[in-house]
């Protein structure tokens, strides 16, 4: 019986390995799917908790909408992003599936890219969903909806970028505990770094120079949410902050990981020239 089945049907995807080697992009599909299966409950939980909290606090008006937005979207979001960053590398390494994953014919860069893509999408999705919930809850009340929506979009952008930093930091973690410790440490540094960015508003020219360091912080646009939007300022500095963030923490990973993936796949294809 075994012989028969073996001599039947040729491969369903072409004759030889060289003829239809998948483009690395196509590998993202299954990788994203498995990541979703692993983290879906975490993501759903975060989305529900954040949305309900924001909607409730906006509705109840015990604190101002601004305070609610800052607290839940930005600070809560900061914590939640940390929470989501523990799993992708740490738990896979801990339960041994990481080895199995690496042994597949997929470039390491593609695997990391898929995890990054999933995480960023999740964070952005959760924050935007919560913002929407808050906005809906605030209808009919005297609530600065414009501020809320803008704040939410910026928070999604900022936290997505912050996720990139956390994921990079946990790349070498061997289990969830190490990943959690790494997230905690990097988060503390992140807060200090953020405060340096906020030096911008002290007015002191010397401190302003220090604040330049803060421009690279993924969440630097948050400083505007807390200060400038109030006064209607936008300014060059805000645009610069967002551009730098986007380049470093959004476009950067895509370009670098994509390039590494493509390079892995092409060096593998080279020997097919000879028969």
């Amino acid at each position, binding site marked *: *019986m*075994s*012989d028969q*089945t*073996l001599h*039947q*049907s*040729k*491969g*369903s*995807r*072409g004759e*030889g*390995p060289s*003829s*239809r*080697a*998948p483009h690395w992009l*196509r*590998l993202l*599909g*299954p990788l994203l*799917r*498995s990541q979703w*299966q*692993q983290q879906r409950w975490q993501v759903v939980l975060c989305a529900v908790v954040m949305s309900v909290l924001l909607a409730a606090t906006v509705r109840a008006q015990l604190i101002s909408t601004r305070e609610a937005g800052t607290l839940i979207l930005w600070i809560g979001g900061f914590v939640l992003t940390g929470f989501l960053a523990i799993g992708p590398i740490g738990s896979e390494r801990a*339960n*041994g*599936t990481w*080895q*199995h994953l*690496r*042994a*597949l*014919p*997929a*470039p390491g860069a593609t695997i990391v890219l898929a995890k990054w893509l999933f995480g960023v999408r999740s964070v952005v999705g959760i924050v935007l969903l919560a913002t929407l919930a808050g906005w809906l809850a605030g209808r009919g009340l005297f609530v600065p909806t414009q501020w809320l929506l803008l704040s939410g979009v910026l928070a999604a952008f900022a936290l997505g970028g912050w996720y990139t930093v956390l994921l990079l930091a946990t790349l070498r973690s061997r289990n969830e505990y190490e990943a959690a410790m790494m997230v905690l440490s990097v988060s503390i540094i992140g807060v200090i770094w953020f405060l340096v960015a906020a030096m911008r508003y002290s007015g002191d020219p010397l401190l302003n120079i220090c604040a330049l360091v803060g421009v690279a912080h993924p969440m630097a646009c948050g400083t505007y949410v807390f200060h400038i939007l109030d006064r209607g300022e936008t300014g060059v500095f805000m645009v610069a902050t967002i551009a730098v963030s986007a380049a470093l923490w959004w476009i950067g990973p895509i370009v670098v990981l994509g390039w590494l993936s493509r390079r*892995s*796949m092409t*060096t*593998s*294809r*080279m*020997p097919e020239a000879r028969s």
Partner: protein
Amino acid sequence: MNQDEPAIRIDDLTKSYGRKRVLERLSLSVPRGSIFGFVGLNGAGKTTTIRCLLGLDRYQGGECRVLGLDAARQSLAIRQRVGYMAESQKMYDFMTVKQIIHWVGRFYPTWDDSLASALCEQMQLPPTDKVGVLSKGQTSKLALLLALAHRPELVILDDPTLGLDPIARRDFMRDVIGQLQSRGVTVFFSSHLLYEIEPVVDWVCILHEGKALKISRTDALRESVKSVMLRPRDGASLAGVPGILDVQQVDRRVSVVVEDLKAARPALDRCSADGLEVADLNLDEIFEAYVIGRRELAGVGPDVAPE
């Protein structure tokens, strides 16, 4: 690659983990279509070698060519063409058998869905059960299925029967031989259970402390490595006997395990007072002689390493 090239060729492979030297100038060649057994104690370097072959670990010296491809630079291509079964098979246990087969299949250009289904049926794997509830034997079979379904030319198995009961082990070997040998697929597998792999392999490589002590066809190994009992003449020393693996004193007689009986016979005859008693050895005993054989007696130093 052409037909004459070996499926795997390792030249002077050297690898260290930090300061610890794990592989020391390892060289071996696996002929196409053969079943090659890689045996050694735990920690001898079997898994490390396999990981180097697949590009999962970097190595510091030497060259590894798998199916003609360079393991250092073209490891992705190697992994596409090689079926690999790792020592510990931890897969996503939330996926069902069917789901994981489909999922893994998307990574391989030559994946054959109908072969995968046929193997699944043949191995009696329940398609709707989650991977997490499978028994150890079933998990091993699933791992084998995943390694075979893309029709690789070479299959590398790292201690595939670890943790299986004896019946499951034989079943597994049966599957491997039945599926692969008939089709001329090269099989490279590592194990520390020698008496188990002997019926299965054409070639044996004994690995110890990162070095290949012996590489030989299985039957040739059995035919040439023998245990010889003799009573030494007065003043005779065993120093002139080539290829001694183990020497033991038993009352007034001496028991010697030699690597090549034909080559050693004349010298042994000269040492002996009253002839030679030759006995066969099983593969376990041969392995022991190579790996922990005592060569210190009668002028034979511990550094006499057989080539």
